[in-house]
């Protein structure tokens, strides 16, 4: 059993919670290799995917995870939802809740939305990304990917590089890595740095070349191209030159070091095309891990024991 009722942020997770989720995800990896990729673990359970902000990758990953666990699921949101017609979040949640559902998966552009949902339902809530706050299943799939590669997480050196201040990936991955004993360094232009790195207790620098050779994991963050307005950075070209991961930087990495990216990538900006496809890249492994950790989180939060495969 996890120590939390909901999966809202990684800050509330203990090392034991994280290990349970990663171990359970690992047990599900065998299911995903079967010809018939389905277990009856959540048969009869109802899950609502409430995507108040567009998301193709995360939404598909959750939907696949639900199908593989045999849950009944319903997707809401986007242009047709009443939420964009001016209905309040409270009204939306209470309306859905009245139909007796077991779990909400929520993606929102406003920070704190998953917490607000908890105030209006007894169902379990998983945060699928809230504004610039957190994206806990992304952090868990990253941990899974890194642990599969190195066999452990403690003591690893991880650099997160790029648009730190607008990144919910940073908000959830940094605390999770620290809980698991990894050492984190934040790298990005000063206009993208977070206001208070002491809150995370990690160093922050603008100089990628000074740290890259020491890292076990170089985690490139997506630059939101709309942030270009307001001149946080002068151009794609300059960004790529100073903070982009190209082969000359990859050649300076430790021999066993790996590259991650949460996707979708801006090839030629934060990561060059040849780097994204090179042997050190774990970007597709991350996508695969996404389905596994989401299956694990849903399964554990809806009351399953740590033997999901045979359930």
């Amino acid at each position, binding site marked *: 059993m996890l120590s939390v009722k909901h999966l809202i942020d990684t800050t509330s997770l203990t090392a034991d919670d994280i290990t349970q989720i990663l171990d359970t995800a690992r047990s599900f990896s065998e299911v995903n290799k079967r010809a018939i990729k389905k277990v009856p673990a959540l048969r009869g359970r109802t899950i609502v995917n409430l995507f108040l902000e567009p998301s193709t990758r995360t939404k598909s990953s959750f939907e696949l995870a639900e199908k593989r666990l045999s849950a009944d699921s319903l997707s809401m949101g986007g242009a047709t939802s009443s939420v964009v017609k001016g209905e309040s*979040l*409270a009204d939306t949640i209470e309306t859905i809740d009245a139909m007796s559902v077991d779990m909400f998966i929520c993606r929102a552009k*406003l*920070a*704190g939305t998953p917490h607000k949902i908890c105030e209006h339902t007894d169902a379990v809530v998983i945060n699928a990304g809230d*504004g610039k*706050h957190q994206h806990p299943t992304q952090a868990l799939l990253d941990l899974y990917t890194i642990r599969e590669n190195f066999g452990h997480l403690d003591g690893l050196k991880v650099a997160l590089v790029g648009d730190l201040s607008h990144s919910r990936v940073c*908000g959830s991955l940094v605390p999770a890595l620290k809980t698991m004993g990894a050492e984190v360094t934040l790298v990005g232009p000063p206009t993208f740095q977070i206001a*208070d790195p002491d*809150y995370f207790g990690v160093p922050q620098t603008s100089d990628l070349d000074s740290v890259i050779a020491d890292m076990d994991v170089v985690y490139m963050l997506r630059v939101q191209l709309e942030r270009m307005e307001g001149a946080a950075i002068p151009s794609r070209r300059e960004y790529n030159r100073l903070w982009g991961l190209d082969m000359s930087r990859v050649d300076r990495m430790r021999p066993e070091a790996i590259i991650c990216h949460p996707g979708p990538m801006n090839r030629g900006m934060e990561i060059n095309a040849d780097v994204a496809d090179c042997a050190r890249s774990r970007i597709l492994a991350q996508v695969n891990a996404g389905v596994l950790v989401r299956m694990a989180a849903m399964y554990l939060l809806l009351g399953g024991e740590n033997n999901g495969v045979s359930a």
Partner: protein
Amino acid sequence: MAFLLRGAHVVDPQVALDCVRDVLIDEGRIQAVGEDLARPAGAEAIDARGKYLVPGLVDMHVHFRDPGFEYKETIETGSRAATHGGFTDVATMPNTDPVSDTGAEIRYQIDRAHEAGLCHVRPIGALTRAEKGESLAEIGDMVVEGAAAFSDDGHGVQGAGMMRTCMEYVSQFGRVAIAHCEVESLTAHGVINEGRASTRLGMFGWPALGEELEIYRDIELCKLTGCPLHIAHISTARGLELVRAAKAEGLPVTCEVCPHHLFLCEDDITDTYDTNLKMNPPLRSAADAAALVEGLVDGSIDCLVTDHAPHAPHEKNCEWEIAFFGTIGLETSLPLMLTNLVGPQKMSWSRLVEAMAVAPREILRLEPVRLEAGSAADLTLIDPTATIEVTPDYFESRSKNSAFLGCTLTGVATDVFVNGRRTLTDGVVTSQGR
């Protein structure tokens, strides 16, 4: 109606009073302050032993939302809240709909307040037309109709040249310009203090510098124009230092602080994203709050205001980033001061009276109210031991969005007199309408 208040502990630093006295009120004025006064025939005797009697409290920064947003608050419901909180006077900010930027709007507020028949409402007019920061409002017209001061509260006046023009123009009327200090190119989308809170909760930050830079600019414009300047709802330690330095130079600069910036800080915003804690300016660091308390106690901060900002439930019961800014404050202001500062003897009763009654009248150029014969009988009687629970039901305000819901506070106004009329009786608002 005449009243004889017997045995109250009267506090008024203006006349060096801090002792037990009887006070006789009649014909709208204080008739006598003394020991063992005889009760004239027809005067109602009030046993005030164990209570404090002070010049009527003034809140020079409130939002009554009338006209335009009467579903949040009206001049009538706001007056009830003010009275319940112990106030005889409030100054209403002009960001209504339409904005109070002509004499007719000022007159409207004064007339509505007269109908409500509770506290004195002192309307503040806009500095610029519709608070757009582009052209002068009809400031002279508003002075003639009774505007107490001028402010574009809700916004900083973004252009330094425009603010200079406003201050030069206001200076001829002997009124104060009140500055909501916010450089919008720095605060942009900010919804929470930039730093620990914005990092922890993942939202755009409202940096302290966004306030401090405009405080600095307006102090320099005060020096240039000679217009008295009052800094609204100061929230940072550095902003307070700038005001201290201006005062040391002898400039006509004053400032105010709100209870929420004294007794709450960014650390009180938890991951429940309680939108009643969303303010403009935002709750700052614990160190800022401590510096503001010190500044209020030592007099560097002239007065206490609430920035009473009523909002309807649907405007607060939502995600933080789209929730409206502000908390109501009129009915918790005095209890918070008594509970947190006066009760624990961090602040004297005299200093409380200066900050909540004397200084705001001076800043607004109102007739002083003193505890002496001949003064207007605008008085507040306070029970320092009575306890209140801050629940939605406690409020007379039409809105319930208090940052202090759930608190238990000790010390509350029981009676209020305005021009000798009893508007609060044992904690119950007693409107007599006119």
